[in-house]
């Protein structure tokens, strides 16, 4: 029987994998680990919808991918920190301010982590937050429009990696700096690098999230100079606390690979943010100068604006006691994850051969009893054993991240041994392990970091792809793998390629948002200063060397479509209003020689392309989004004359 043979081969390859792990650290064979009926279990029939949205970070592409589960199909790419020629994000006049920073226009970032908004610790999926790692920023996406609505820069941060995790009612989204740096004025910060221990500081910033999602930098805690890696908020009984993993508590500033791996234990930093709020209410804290950009999209004008902020409220927990406690955690912890009940805090020491699990109840008692084993830069260190629930022994090599299924089980990704290990949170017993292909980073269970996981599927986001797909030269798509975790054993169902380099992803039931999607923007509500409400208002106006084209688009023509009287040296602004009021009918606009990109205008919106003609001649423009049977006819001509020309400015349609 053919099927039997397949199973036998699978069993053999599994045995080889197991041997490989026993002898080396890495599976030697790719193998086929999937179960026989895997295809039918991930099949979403034509016209049907996936059960979950998976919001996936794009890493070095600065974008977010929206993926359907269980099919693994990519549904959309949302530009966040990176300019996106596909729709003009970062190129149109309206979207450029969204990428403004205190360093000016920064059209790229490294987007690592996703946080989906929660209420009472459960996904409500109003917004997705994402971190910009390189030029520290946090972005907020509206999950009814799938647009980036807001970006706030983080001052006194350098490498916003420990971010954008959120509290259980989305009170705060946080930003912990990966790199500690001097945090005084620009002049004060000009210090010798080898004065790290004296001059470098860490910060963790708490961004307040308003009812409409609006972000504001509420306060910043100044900490000892260490590297913050990841973090999670407490929930349920531990609501009011935040837990940050740290490494380089050695405070090395060179060859961190060796010098930041010296100590047997680094720390998880426990932050009592309710205590910090009390201090602020009592008037504590210092307002200090800080420059950071705060950018917001206005849906009525379809335009983003950027405001440069001037100061930030800082608290020094060395002086303001009881905000910060350090919990020893073995060997450079990477992930710190809180179980659905809020009782257990899992530290994943990426160089450790065990996984410590801390108890919130024990932590509180240790703090109450002042059960400390010393101080770190003036902050109390909790006695390790006093906060410890227990350890998972020999789980594998290189534990990174842990998610939960809501049935008392935890799933930890093992980078070095390239596997996922399932274990019991109470008994700490290893229940199952499955190889991943290859070298898993983050893993994601729908609702996995929340108080209410949907423990049906799990996605492994792998760092290495090698032979999993048809080869495409030196660079390969990063591999993701979908597992069924509804039974006792994890079962591999599907491999799928991804966009960019996914780090973290969150998933939630599609029913939370799919009936709330915005389909059009009402043209009546368009308050763009250069809106053209109707073809009768289409026109061209000159203001010095600026030419404003008030243009409309509807299937299948632009108004106007003949323009003359533009001169070399002019800046031409095409303000294109899409008069369509039907779902899924954007129009695009592009003109020959534009040094930017196209603009893609949603129904009812106005977007502006700036164009500086460099020579006289006739320049065609056209619609770039196939819109109708007469799409190829949706075009026009613009005449450019020499700078000293006397050709009158005029525009027309159908004349």
């Amino acid at each position, binding site marked *: 029987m053919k099927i039997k043979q397949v199973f036998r081969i699978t069993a053999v390859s599994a045995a080889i994998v197991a041997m490989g792990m026993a002898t080396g650290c890495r599976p030697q064979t790719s193998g086929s680990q999937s179960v026989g009926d895997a295809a039918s279990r991930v099949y979403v029939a034509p016209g049907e919808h996936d059960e979950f949205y998976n919001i996936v970070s794009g890493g070095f592409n600065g974008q977010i991918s929206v993926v359907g589960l269980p099919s693994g199909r990519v549904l959309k790419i949302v530009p966040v920190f990176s300019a996106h020629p596909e729709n003009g994000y970062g190129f149109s006049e309206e979207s450029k301010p969204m990428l403004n920073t205190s360093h000016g226009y920064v059209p790229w970032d490294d987007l690592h982590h996703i946080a989906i908004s929660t209420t009472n610790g459960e996904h409500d999926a109003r917004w997705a937050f994402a971190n910009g790692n390189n030029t520290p920023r946090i972005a907020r996406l509206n999950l009814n429009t799938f647009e980036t609505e807001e970006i706030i820069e983080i001052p006194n941060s350098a490498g916003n990696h420990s971010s954008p995790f959120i509290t259980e009612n989305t009170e705060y989204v946080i930003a912990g700096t990966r790199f500690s740096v001097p945090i005084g004025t620009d002049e004060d910060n000009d210090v010798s690098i080898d004065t790290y221990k004296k001059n470098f500081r860490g910060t963790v910033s708490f961004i307040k999230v308003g009812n409409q999602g609006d972000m504001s930098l509420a306060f910043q805690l100044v900490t000892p100079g260490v590297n913050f890696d990841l973090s999670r908020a407490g929930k349920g009984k531990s609501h009011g606390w935040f837990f940050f993993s740290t490494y380089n508590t050695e405070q090395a500033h060179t060859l961190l690979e060796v010098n930041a791996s010296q100590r047997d234990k680094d720390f998880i930093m426990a932050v009592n943010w309710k205590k910090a709020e009390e201090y602020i209410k009592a008037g504590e804290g210092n307002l200090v100068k800080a420059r950071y950009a705060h950018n917001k999209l206005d849906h009525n004008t379809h335009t983003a604006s950027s405001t440069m902020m001037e100061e930030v409220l800082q608290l020094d927990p060395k002086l303001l006691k009881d905000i910060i406690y350090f919990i020893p955690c073995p060997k450079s912890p990477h992930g710190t994850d809180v179980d659905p009940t809020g009782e257990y805090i899992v530290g994943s020491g990426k160089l450790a051969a065990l996984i410590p699990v801390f108890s919130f109840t024990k932590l509180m008692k240790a703090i109450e009893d002042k059960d400390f084993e010393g101080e770190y830069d003036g902050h109390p260190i909790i006695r390790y054993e006093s906060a410890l629930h227990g350890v998972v022994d020999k789980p594998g090599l290189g534990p990174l991240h842990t998610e939960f299924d809501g049935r008392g089980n935890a799933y930890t990704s093992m980078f070095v041994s390239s596997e996922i290990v399932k274990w019991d949170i109470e008994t700490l017993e290893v229940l199952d392990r499955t190889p991943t292909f290859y070298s898993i980073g983050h893993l994601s269970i729908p609702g996995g970091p929340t108080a209410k996981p949907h423990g049906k599927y799990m996605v492994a986001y792998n760092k290495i792809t090698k032979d999993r797909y048809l080869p495409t030269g030196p660079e390969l798509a990063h591999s993701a793998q979908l597992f069924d975790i509804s039974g006792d054993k994890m079962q591999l169902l599907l491999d799928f390629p991804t966009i960019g380099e996914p780090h973290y992803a969150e998933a939630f039931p599609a029913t939370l948002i799919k009936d709330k999607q915005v389909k059009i923007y009402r043209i009546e509500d368009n308050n763009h200063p250069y809106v053209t409400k109707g073809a009768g208002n289409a026109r061209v106006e000159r203001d010095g060397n600026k030419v404003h084209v008030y243009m409309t688009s509807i299937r299948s*023509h632009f108004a106007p479509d003949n323009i003359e009287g533009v001169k070399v040296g002019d800046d031409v602004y095409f303000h294109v209003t899409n008069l*369509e009021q039907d779902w899924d009918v954007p129009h695009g606009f592009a003109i020959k020689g534009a040094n930017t990109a196209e603009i893609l205008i949603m129904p009812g919106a106005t977007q502006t392309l700036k164009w500086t003609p460099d020579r006289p001649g006739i320049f065609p423009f056209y619609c770039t989004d196939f819109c109708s049977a007469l799409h190829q006819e949706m075009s026009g001509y613009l005449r450019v004359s020499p700078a000293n020309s006397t050709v009158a400015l005029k525009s027309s349609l159908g004349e």
Partner: protein
Amino acid sequence: MLIALLFLISCGGGDTGTITSTTTQSSGGDDEPQSIREGKGIGEITHVELTADIDENMVEVGKSIYDMKCSSCHKLNDQRVVGPGFENITNRRKPEWIMNMITNVDVMLDKDPEAQAMLEECLMRMPNQNVSVGDARQLLEFMRKNDKERTGQMDAAVN
């Protein structure tokens, strides 16, 4: 089974009549719905009561909607651009047909032979411009006035 809803539209002092509308009738098989046979198209609008006078307030609102959402494709004379010119529309089409075409264009293009004939001629599906029943009635008033001014006649297709 038809559930009749009554839309009362009163603007200023002028009572311009009532519109009776129903939930969309989905007819099975090859049976052409009664409303299509009557030249009223298909959609929410089953009966429009017109008044002899033109309500200028409604015309004004109707014109602003026309300028914003319709004028790109429909001229006010008899010239076809993307879609047909509006001149004589109320003399050729029943008010119910006009309002159903505006508010229920996708179903009209699927089921109404007159609408389908227009699509074959223009080769451009008329877009759904998200116009409410109330706004469609204001547009109708604007069309009536346009016909009256250009041809001296309006509503000739009512009976």
